[in-house]
């Protein structure tokens, strides 16, 4: 238990927290203001409605894509580190 947190886990955790905050803002922050956002027009939709019906979904997918890409890079980094360490 005394050994320090491995780099891999530290980086994973930071990435997770950042993306989670982004998700929180997107899910609860944006929708809190749906009534106000509905005053604006986006592609022929009221913006608040659009965010709930499509916008948020596409951004969720983007969050997962970004996470997977970062994690793949992190995995590769770890492989390299292990190779160098023997």
């Amino acid at each position: 238990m005394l050994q320090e947190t491995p780099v891999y886990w530290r980086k994973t955790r930071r990435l997770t927290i950042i993306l989670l905050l982004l998700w929180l803002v997107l899910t609860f922050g944006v929708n809190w203001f749906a009534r106000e956002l509905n005053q604006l027009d986006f592609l022929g939709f009221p913006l608040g409605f659009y965010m709930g019906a499509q916008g948020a979904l596409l951004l969720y997918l983007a969050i997962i894509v970004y996470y997977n890409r970062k994690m793949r890079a992190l995995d590769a980094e770890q492989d390299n580190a292990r190779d160098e360490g023997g």
Partner: protein
Amino acid sequence: MLPSLSRLQRYYLVYTGVFLLFIAGLAALEQNGMPPRWVGYAFLVFTITMYATIGVLSRTSDVSEYYVAGRRVPAFFNGMATGADWMSAASFMGLAGTLYLSGFQGLAYVIGWTGGFVLVALLLAPYLRRFGQFTIPDFLSARYGGNFIRLVAVGAAILASFVYVVAQIYGVGVITSRFVSLQFEIGVFVGLAGILVCSFLGGMRAVTWTQVAQYLILIVAYITPVAILSYNVTGVAIPQVVYGQVLAQVSQLEKTLFDSPVEAEVRQLYRERADRYAEKIMQLPVSLTHEREQLANQINELKASDAQMREIVALERQRRELPHDPEQARVRWENAMYSAVDRSKPPVHHAEAFPGETPEAQQAQRLNFLALIFCLTVGTAALPHVLMRYYTTPSVAQARESVFWSLLFIMVLYITAPAYAVFAKHEVFTNLIGIPITKLPGWVAAWSKIGLVGIEDINGDGLLQLAELSLNPDVIVLATPEIAGMPYVVSGLVAAGALAAALSTADGLLLTITSALSHDVYYRIFRPDASTQFRLVISKSLLLVVAIMAATVAAQKPGTILSMVAWAFSIAGSAFFPALVLGIFWMRATKAGAIAGMLVGLSITLYYILRLEFSNLSWLGLQGQAMEPWFHLQSTSAGVFGVLAGFVTHIVVSLLTPPSPEAASFLARIRRGHDREVS
């Protein structure tokens, strides 16, 4: 790996081709006079035969194959199977209907059910796969140690999955009773047979490959009618892109329709009716006796005069159907009053967020909306039948990829659902409202017969007003092809899709329940020395028992599909989410904390649902226990309190108990990066 992957893709490509040919063939036959009923039968027989074939081909008696499909499911196909596992009768039938009825407020389901996958991706899937056992109770028991937590987890998994599976089987009953005219109760058991052929022989392996097949059918079935509608209305067959302008038209129609004097008159009539019921309820039991006497007098008068026998019989039936005692009268009249109150309210504008007449009412709507999103996201990330799917991929990286594919495949339906609702509303507003009741199209009668569509000419003008039409949310998707006057083959296709959605989810859920019982309880706790052969025998027999129990409950029609499903989410979320997430991300989380958190969370959620939804539980000896909701939140959002209480309890109790020594090594193992894959 690659050749086998492309072989699988070839199989499913051929399968999809055969299915499309089959639809085209039926369409041609219908043109040449094949009766609709046979179209319904053809779809039912064809699709269930397909699933059964796949089920039989993938039968297995290997434990790892049975529980986790041998961990050989590629990310792409696991995504598709998760999609079918995930999208239930509620998503397929209920969602567009709820969006139709409540407009913007229904988007909470769309946001919640997709947003939850971000939590699955970030917080759970990679770690569960890295752990690599069979069930969710396995994970909790390994992290926290001991069998007691395993039992708590098994209980919660069974409770959530059972509520959920009842909703699916109910959906199957609705479909079969409408499309092949079976009696509802018989339809339920036919659906059961369809579920069993897939999961009984081959466990997870068979379920996975049938779910892929079911995904393909359900997505084709979901998109086809709305694409046709979109083409008819706008000239573009991609409804998701163009429905903005249709929404604008609907809003325009709403403005003229809602404020028209005749609609106001109908709403006034309903308000008066609600007042009459309220008065009658106030004066119970006198009002009931009074009513009975009045009917008796009428009958005697009619008998004395030489009136038509038919009228007398009708009145006598009315007398027979009067409530037997004041208690029953109260329940029945209260329902009638609430339904009249509902119809007397001015309808909601489709795109309006948080509608309400006062700022307080709007604020309550906003809170309900966000609370429901919260419950659904957290529940998504806690439902055992979905999480289990991430045990089946070959590696951690594949588990991550497969969350991406899951969300992509699921999104196709969730992006379409709001469009579906808008197009259906456009169709109803332009083609149904204001036409003479005697000239209503045939589908209205067909659906009224099974009680899901109601028409009442309350103002007696012979025309249909919006407030006189009541639609159960579960019929919108199934009836849209008929509402828009499409050939019956489209209706058959939609029914087949809905059936696929219900069956695939029910399969996954039944498997979760039985693996919890056979693997976690029987094998892990009672008989660790049981032979693998015998474990599978136990598992298969339990599957049968649970399936029959679920069908029996479903035959009682306990609630609408969507509300049953929302309860399952709250139950799963409050039981599992804190224990899983804290278990992975917080080393200090202890066994005592986890157990306390799970029990407290679960109890609060159940308490809230029961107090709000079931004012009388006669079998528990409870009566008149209905209470005012906390912060105006509906029972579908019960999980908010359960999850938050679960987190707080878990953290407080963990800090009060000594840290568990095994946590560090367990966490080091699941938090590690991937092991090099041999490529």
